[in-house]
């Protein structure tokens, strides 16, 4: 393990369970999610092991994003059990997911457009800052010390993702590729155990994709962060991920090593379409 000052390091909030690489970090059992009569996800089970990169793939509308939303508590599934770090999770509010060590990025960039890059990433540390509102008003003293501590961590992430030059720029003005990177930085600032990436490479050109792939691998290897990602670029998925789960119409149709999944007939059918 790295020294505790490194971003992405695991020293998480009060949970004493220490997991080794290869243990089950997140286990999903028979989860179903409905919106009225529409089944977005039905009876899905899979797990994510600590330290791996797990890809979730499938055609459009397969329920991938809904699955991520379930994992970080934005949607509450009607059925099923979710175990995170060995504990069965009760229903919770989305903001509590961060406290448990789950961070994510979004399919359509969800940054705070009116704020600078630095402020966006600092916002990712919201749960870790504790000085109360009165100390904040006085500023000098504990509040400022805390701000500077967190600023140091954030600057490390900024260095790591090579976005020093846009530190002060309002993110609304940044090109799409950089916005995606800032979003990753914000997620890293939460120092998650499990990082959920929703199409981190959508709409990027080749060069940007290569950069992003490098960052994802670096995050995984240097900080040991477990990653679950949704991606449509099969080349990227096959290269990056350790294991792949395939969804189609809200059901799981395959689960396994990238090369196994690639050969699976049902997966090929789902992507190419077969006459029913």
């Amino acid at each position, binding site marked *: 393990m790295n020294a505790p000052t490194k971003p992405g390091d695991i020293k998480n909030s009060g949970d004493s369970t220490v997991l080794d690489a290869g243990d089950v970090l997140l286990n999903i059992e028979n989860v179903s999610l409905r919106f009225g009569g529409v089944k977005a996800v039905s009876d899905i089970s899979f797990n994510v092991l600590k330290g791996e990169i797990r890809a979730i793939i499938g055609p459009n509308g397969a329920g991938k994003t809904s699955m991520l939303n379930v994992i970080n508590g*934005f949607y509450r599934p009607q059925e099923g059990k979710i175990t995170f770090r060995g504990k069965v999770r009760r229903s919770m509010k989305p903001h509590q*997911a961060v406290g448990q060590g789950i961070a*994510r990025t979004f399919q359509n960039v969800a940054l*705070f*457009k009116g704020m600078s890059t630095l402020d966006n990433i600092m916002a990712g540390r*919201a749960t870790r800052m504790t000085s109360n509102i009165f100390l*904040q008003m006085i500023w000098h003293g504990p509040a400022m010390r805390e701000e500077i501590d967190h600023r140091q961590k954030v600057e490390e992430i900024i260095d790591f993702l090579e976005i020093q030059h846009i530190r002060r720029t309002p993110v609304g003005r940044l090109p799409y590729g950089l916005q995606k990177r800032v979003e990753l930085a914000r997620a890293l600032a939460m120092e998650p155990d499990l990082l959920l990436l929703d199409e981190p490479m959508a709409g990027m050109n080749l060069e940007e994709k290569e950069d992003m792939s490098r960052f994802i691998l670096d995050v995984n290897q240097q900080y040991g962060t477990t990653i679950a990602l949704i991606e449509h670029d099969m080349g990227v998925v096959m290269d990056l991920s350790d294991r792949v789960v395939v969804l189609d119409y809200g059901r799981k149709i395959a689960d396994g090593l990238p090369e196994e999944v690639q050969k699976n007939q049902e997966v090929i059918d789902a992507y190419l379409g077969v006459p029913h």
Partner: protein
Amino acid sequence: MLYRTAGQFKTSYQSDQALFPVRQDAFLLIFFLLLAYVVFPLTASEFTFKALLVPVLIYSLASLGLNILTGYAGQLSLGTAGFMGVGAYACYKITTIFPELNFVIALALSGFFSAAIGVAFGLPSLRIKGFYLAIATLAAQFFLVWLFEKWSWLYNDNASGAIEVRTMDMFGLTVTGPTASPVVQYYFVLVAVTVVFWLSINLTRGRYGRMWKAVRDMDIAAELVGINLMRAKLTAFAVSSYIVGIAGALMVFLWKGAAEPNLFDIPLSFQILFIAIIGGLGSILGNFLGAILIVALPVIINLIPGMLGLSVNVATLEHINVMIIGALIVTFLIVEPHGLARFWAVIREKLVIWPFPH
């Protein structure tokens, strides 16, 4: 040349996060503080105090309160005047029930009442969003004014239904009431405004400011990065209403001297909203700029016919004033939706690189 930042290096995060990382900004602030604390008191006439300086300060304070809620946290409020009224009536009751209490303490306490009412009417914001939320603050506005009228205990059962400020002393100086000198009142308001602004600046540049802005820019994402929406919104309502309440109390106690319930009717709410919009939502400086414009405009409009040798009646001038403010708002939204504060920011950016434009 004047605003060149080259050569000012930051060697620590502390200095980088200072309020004025650029030295010239600090000089400018000192200049304006000198103006406010030394030059104006020495030169201003009683009319200037009562019609310009004190109103600007009090309106900018109310606008700051609204700005924290609407400009920073993104929760539209149309009920500012109602909350100002709560502050004023609370202060009135506190000073009647505890006549010996120091006025500063009474003032500070009265803010807590408006904060509590603000939080109560802010609770719906957890379920209702956007325009639908405007209804909650409007409900507060109309209900509170009605309450000020009907609940005679609030105005000590006066026959007139109005509250009148009695004379109060502090450190041997008369601060409130008809005999108080305008300079003393001006200084009192000035110090109060300075303190509240300083605290608010600290609040908005740190954790809470980021939380609020995150909620404003995208509340779903804010929640998913771990920001507790309930806490963010309710603190915004509390802080905002506290400041607005203080502004209301100051308005009655150190400026108007008396108040009827209809003082806190919806036109005042809109006036404060316009100050915030014209000054710039999400800006601290903008509150002053907006207040200066809104307070000075009618004064200037009143002077113009005299200078041109025309005689126009007062009501007509009032109508023209309303028209101009309406047109100004539309113009601002079209030309610069971020208000006067953004104008200054643009000018400053130009000055920094002047005279070398690249």
